[in-house]
C-alpha cells in the first residue's frame, strides 16, 4: 500500500515539475495532475499544496470549483457527451438517453464494471457537426443514438482506450 502511494506521489511530482508554462499556479498544477492520473486523489491535492506553498483547503477550493475535476478514478474509457444548445437542437437528448440505457446509468458516472465513465460537456467545440461526443478524447460528430450505442458496446469489450481509427 505504502509503495502504491509512493508511486502515486512520484507520478504527481513529475507531472508538477514538467508543466509547460512558466506561470505555475494551484490551477495549473491541478490540471497537470488530472492529465496525468485522470482524477485528483487526496494525496495529489496535498502534493499540489506543498508544491505551490498553499493550503490543502485552498487547493480543494479551486478543485471543487472547476467542474472538470473528478475525485474518483475514472473508468477505463471516458465518454463525454456534448449537452450544449447546438447539440440539443440537433438531437443529443436521444443520444444521451440511449447511452444511459446501454450503460445502465441514471446520469453522469462510471459503470459498475469500471469500463466506461460518462460525462456531460457543455461544449466540445465542433458545433457545426452536432451532436458531438468524445470517446477517449476522440471527437465524433453527427452521431446518432444507434452509432453511439455501437461505439459504447465496442468499449465495453476492449480493455485499453483505443487511439486508432
Amino acid at each position, binding site marked *: 500500500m505504502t509503495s502504491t502511494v509512493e508511486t502515486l506521489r512520484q507520478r504527481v511530482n513529475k507531472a508538477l515539475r514538467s508543466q509547460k*508554462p512558466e506561470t505555475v499556479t494551484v*490551477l*495549473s498544477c491541478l490540471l497537470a495532475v488530472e492529465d496525468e492520473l485522470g482524477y485528483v486523489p487526496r494525496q495529489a491535492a496535498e502534493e499540489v499544496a506543498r508544491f505551490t506553498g498553499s493550503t490543502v483547503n485552498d487547493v480543494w477550493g*479551486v478543485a471543487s470549483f*472547476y467542474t472538470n*475535476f473528478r475525485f474518483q478514478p475514472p473508468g477505463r474509457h471516458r465518454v463525454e457527451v456534448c449537452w450544449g444548445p447546438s447539440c440539443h437542437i440537433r438531437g443529443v437528448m436521444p443520444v444521451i438517453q440511449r447511452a444511459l440505457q446501454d450503460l445502465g446509468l441514471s446520469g453522469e458516472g462510471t459503470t459498475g464494471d469500471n469500463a466506461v465513465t460518462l460525462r456531460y460537456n457543455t461544449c*466540445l467545440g*465542433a458545433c457545426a*457537426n452536432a451532436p458531438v461526443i468524445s470517446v477517449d478524447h476522440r471527437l465524433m460528430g453527427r452521431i446518432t443514438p444507434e452509432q453511439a450505442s455501437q461505439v459504447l458496446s465496442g468499449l465495453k469489450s476492449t480493455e485499453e482506450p483505443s487511439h486508432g481509427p
Partner: protein
Amino acid sequence: MAPSFEHISDRAARKWQTLTQDRPWIRVGTALCGKAAGADEVVSALEQELERRDIDASISEVGCLGPCFAEPLVDVSTPGGARVVYGGVTPEAAAEIVSSHLVEGRPLAGYALGSLDDGESNGIPRLSDHPMMKLQRRIALRNAGHLDPCDIDQYVANDGYAALRRALTGMTPDEVRQEVAKSGLRGRGGAAFPTATKWNFLAGSKDPVKYILANCEEGDPGAFNDKGILESDPHSLIEGMILAGYATGASMGYVFIRHGHNGPIDRTWRAIEQARESGVLGRSIFGSTFSFNLEVSLTGDSYVAGEETALMESIEGKRAMPRYRPPFPAQVGLFGKPTNINNVKTLAYVPQIVLNGGDWFAAIGRERSAGTAILCLSGSLAYTGMAEVPMGVTLREVVEQVAGGTPNGKKLKLLQTGGPLGGVLSSEALDIPLDFDAMSQAGAILGSGGIIAADEDSCVVDLTRALIAFCQYESCGKCFPCRSGMTHLLEALERICRLESRPEDLTLMEEIGRNMQAGSLCGHGQLGFNPVSSALRHFRGEFERHLVDRTCPVGTCPTPWSSPTSSRR
C-alpha cells in the same frame, strides 16, 4: 542572436516555392470540426496511398476553411495545375482523389466542393461562388484552412509578421494606437468596446510591468471561431498580441484557453515555440529595443472564467469568480498589474490593420461597426461552419444565403445569437444588419458571433430549458441572486416542459429575472434572464399553451431530459 526578419522571410519564401511550385500539395482540415468528421483517418489514408504509389507530394494538416458541414475537407493542388477542395472525403474517397487528381491529372468532380483557381477547373465551379462563400470577406480568417498553423514559414510567406516589422522599424507605439483608432475596431468578445480606447488606458499607465491577455475561453456553446483561429492561424493572434504589447508598453502576454481543447492548445504552443526560435518573440525583436514574451494559460471548466476579471483570477490559479470594478483591469489587473484583455478575433485583425492602414479597415462594414463579423453557424442550417462577412450583411442574408437555410426544407423558427445569454430571435425578425448597435436596439446580441438556428420541429420552451440549464450549471455561485435564481428558473422550466406547471410559474420567473439583473456582479446574472425574456417576447403563445392548456404545440414535450449535476449548486 535572434535571426533577422530578412533571414526568416528568405527562408519562408524558399519553402513556399517548394510547397506551391515543386510538387503537389495536399491540405487536410484537421481542426475540431474536421476531426469530429474523421479527418485523422483521411490523413492516414492519404499518407498510405502516396507511399503505395510512390508519389512525392507534401501533406499539411491545416485548420478550418469554414464549410465545416462538408468536413473532412481535402485541398489538392499541383504545380501549374488545378487546386480543388474536396468535401465529405472518406478514406476510400481519399485514395480515389489521389488516383484521379494526382496520377491522372484529372480533378474529381464528384467529391469537389469548389475550385480555388481563378476560373473553373474541369467543370468544377469556383469555391468563391459557393453560396456559403459568396458574401464572405476574409480578414481574420484569411489564412484559415490555407496555411499549416504549425509552420511559421507559411505564415511569413503570406505577409506574416510584416506588420510587426513595419511597426517596430517605422512606427511609434502612439502611431500604432492611432492606426487602430482610425480603423474603428471594436472588441469582438461581446462588449464591442473600442479597442484603441482600451489600449490607451493601458498605455497611460507608467507601471513597468503590464500584461496583454487574449481571451479564448470561448465557453459559449455554438461559438468556435476563437478556437478556430487558434487552430487555423495562431500566428495572426500572436502577431496581434505582440503589436498590442508594443502599442501599450506591455512585455508579457497570456493566451487564455480552456483545457481539453487539445488541437487549439497544441497548435498555439507550437506557434509560440516557433515564434521564439525565429526571434519574433523574445528579447529585442528584429533588433529593436522592444521585447515581448507569451505563454498559454489553461483554465478548468468554468463559463464565467471568460468574464475578464474572473479570467484574471483563473490565470492566477484561483476560482474564476468576477472581481468588483473599479478598479478596472487597466489599473489593477493580473497579479495586481495593469492589464489589457482582448478577444482572440479582435487581436487577429490587428496585423492587417497595421499593414493596410486604419482607413482601409474603417471602409469595410458599417459606420460604427467597422470590419467584418466572424460567425459560427450551427443548429438547423444547411451550411454549418465558420464564416466571415462584412458588417451590414443582414441576419436574413446570413441565414438564407451564407448558411443555405434549413436542411430538409423545414421552416426556420428562431435564432439563438451571442451565446446562451443572448437569448432568441424569432425568424420573423431577421431583417437586422450585423451591426453592434442595430442588433442591440433589436434586443439581440452579436456577441462572439455564434448563431444557432432552430426549425419548426424545436419546441421553444424545451430550448429555453436547455439554455437556462446551461446558465444554472455555469453560475459561479458568488452572487446568490444568480446562483439561486438560476436554479429556481430551471426548476420552473422543467415543470413547464413536463406539462406540470403551476399557475404562478410565469410571474415567479419574471420576478426571479428582475432580482438576478439587479443583484448580480457580472453579465452571467445580469443577462441570465435573457433566454426566458426573449423567448417570452417572441413566443409567448407557445409558453401559454404549455402553461394553461398543458400541451406542447410542437408535440415534443415532455421530452426526455437529463442534466449534469453541478458542483457549485
